[in-house]
């Protein structure tokens, strides 16, 4: 036995200048996670994000439930983006079981996914606003989000955790007269979010606080494996809706926004531009959608996979590419289910972004990563 302690218990040398600060896990500024920050005066020397406080064992839980009863618990990690987290799972199970989905169901799914993306981004924007001390930017998105929640409630019956996507289509058809109501509310929503530019995005106070802070270069963004808004803010044009179109995204005209700067201003602006694009996609989908037809293929109550098989599907969620790897061994339950979530992949960039920044810039840089702790911990 040696006198050396394991790395976690080793006594660290105390530096007179460096102070270690724990931000979280109960701190409202960090979410359900801890950021261990070492500061020299006002400047951050090193930072170590420490996720894992809300680990729920979603992947293990999925091994004990069949393909249908997995739906309600799989959407819990991101309740605001519940359609998008179910999307890869549903696409994967459809491929495992060999189901062909009706055309109308695919359009309904695209509409739901885009509405959910906007709902998520509005929630994120509200938090981003309040952590920069901009109370108006908390109140406006939280209120305007209601327009979209109302639409989702009309479609699925629930405000959050819709449990709307199932293998073989969607749970129910769009309510009568939905196209008209949706178009009216989406048009108003678009008008509202364009107003945010005057209050928030073109505001010189916001620009001076976020511009050139936490710069992630194009090479670093690719090397660290970031996805979604973080990657696109660094000048990489990579969107799964365009690169690997699923369902009916091929037939729709999608232009995902890209910015070159890579600072936290760009990272906070990309989701806002994404919302404008989502409104565009919803309008196109409403127009091109078949006016009638089936939206669900009837399945057995306990569908089974065909022998040993595995499938990996990924979609573009509100935060980036969200993948789901399902391994089936021919039983009613999946043998293994792995979620590859964008939040966890974007978090790795945090130590690189915060090095050399002022401590006051930490909230703006941290929230600009579009990080959702519960999703990262699964």
């Amino acid at each position, binding site marked *: 036995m040696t006198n050396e302690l394991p790395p976690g218990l080793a006594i660290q040398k105390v530096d007179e200048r460096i102070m270690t600060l724990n931000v979280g896990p109960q701190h409202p500024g960090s979410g359900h996670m801890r950021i261990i920050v070492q500061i020299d005066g006002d400047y951050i020397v090193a930072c170590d994000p420490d996720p894992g406080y809300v680990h729920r064992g979603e992947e293990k839980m999925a091994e004990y439930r069949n393909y249908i*009863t997995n739906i309600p618990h799989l959407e819990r990690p991101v309740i605001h983006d519940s359609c998008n987290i179910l999307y890869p799972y549903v696409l994967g199970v459809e491929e495992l079981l060999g189901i062909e989905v009706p055309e109308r169901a695919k359009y309904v799914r695209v509409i739901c996914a885009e509405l959910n993306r906007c709902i998520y981004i509005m929630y994120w924007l509200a938090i981003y606003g309040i952590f920069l001390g901009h109370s108006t930017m908390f109140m406006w998105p939280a209120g305007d989000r209601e327009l979209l929640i109302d639409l989702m409630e009309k479609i699925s019956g629930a405000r959050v955790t819709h449990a709307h996507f199932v293998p073989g289509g969607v749970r129910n058809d769009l309510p009568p007269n939905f196209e008209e109501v949706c178009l009216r509310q989406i048009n*108003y929503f678009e008008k509202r979010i364009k107003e945010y530019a005057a209050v928030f995005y073109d505001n010189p106070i916001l620009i001076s606080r976020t511009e050139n802070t936490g710069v992630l270069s194009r090479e670093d963004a690719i090397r660290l494996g970031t996805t979604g808004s973080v990657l696109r803010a660094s000048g990489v044009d990579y969107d799964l809706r365009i690169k690997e179109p699923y369902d009916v995204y091929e037939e729709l005209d999608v232009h995902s926004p890209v910015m070159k700067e890579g600072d936290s201003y760009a990272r906070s602006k990309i989701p806002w531009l994404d919302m404008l694009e989502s409104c565009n996609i919803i309008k196109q989908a409403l127009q091109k959608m078949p006016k009638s037809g089936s939206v669900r293929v009837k399945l057995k109550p306990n569908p089974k996979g065909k022998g040993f098989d595995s499938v990996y599907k990924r979609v573009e969620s509100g935060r980036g590419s969200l993948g789901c790897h399902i391994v089936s061994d021919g039983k009613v339950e999946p043998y293994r289910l792995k979620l590859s979530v964008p939040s966890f992949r974007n978090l790795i960039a945090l130590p690189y972004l915060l090095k050399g920044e002022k401590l006051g810039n930490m909230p703006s840089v941290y929230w600009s990563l579009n990080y959702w702790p519960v999703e990262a911990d699964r």
Partner: protein
Amino acid sequence: MTNTATGIIRALNSGIKHIATKRFTLRYPEEKLKFVGDGYQYDPATGVGIAGLKGRHMLFHDHCTGCQLCSIACEGVAEAIAMVKVPEEQKQNKKSIMPQIDYGKCVFCGLCVDACPFYALYMTNDYELSSFTKEGLIYTPAQLQVKPYVAQDSEIIITKWGATHG
């Protein structure tokens, strides 16, 4: 400097415009949001549900056969549904068992409604289910039979001056 000045003036201008707009907030206990349809219902013939609010369930005693499919559907989700013996004075089915739902556990996913092949179970728009005791959240088949009365009439109205909850 001019950029800063115009930026602040634009922001203020946009804020001032909101003095004239109506309040968007829904005054919840007095006003309730109107909803499409009756409740979440499922058509076993086509395999498709009918959109509706996912509130507490309603059980049609004359349709329920006691087949336990709802209870099986709930097994991996919340285990909220238990099949209980129906008292003799009430309407009986073949097995004389009917679902009893514990709303302390229910997650309102609606999979039990999808599982019912006899149109016996569907969800209503009653979502105010609070109780002082845990037992008060357990709804027996007799309680589930009662059709709830919920007055919901507000909806989002969009005008030139902005959106309000009417």
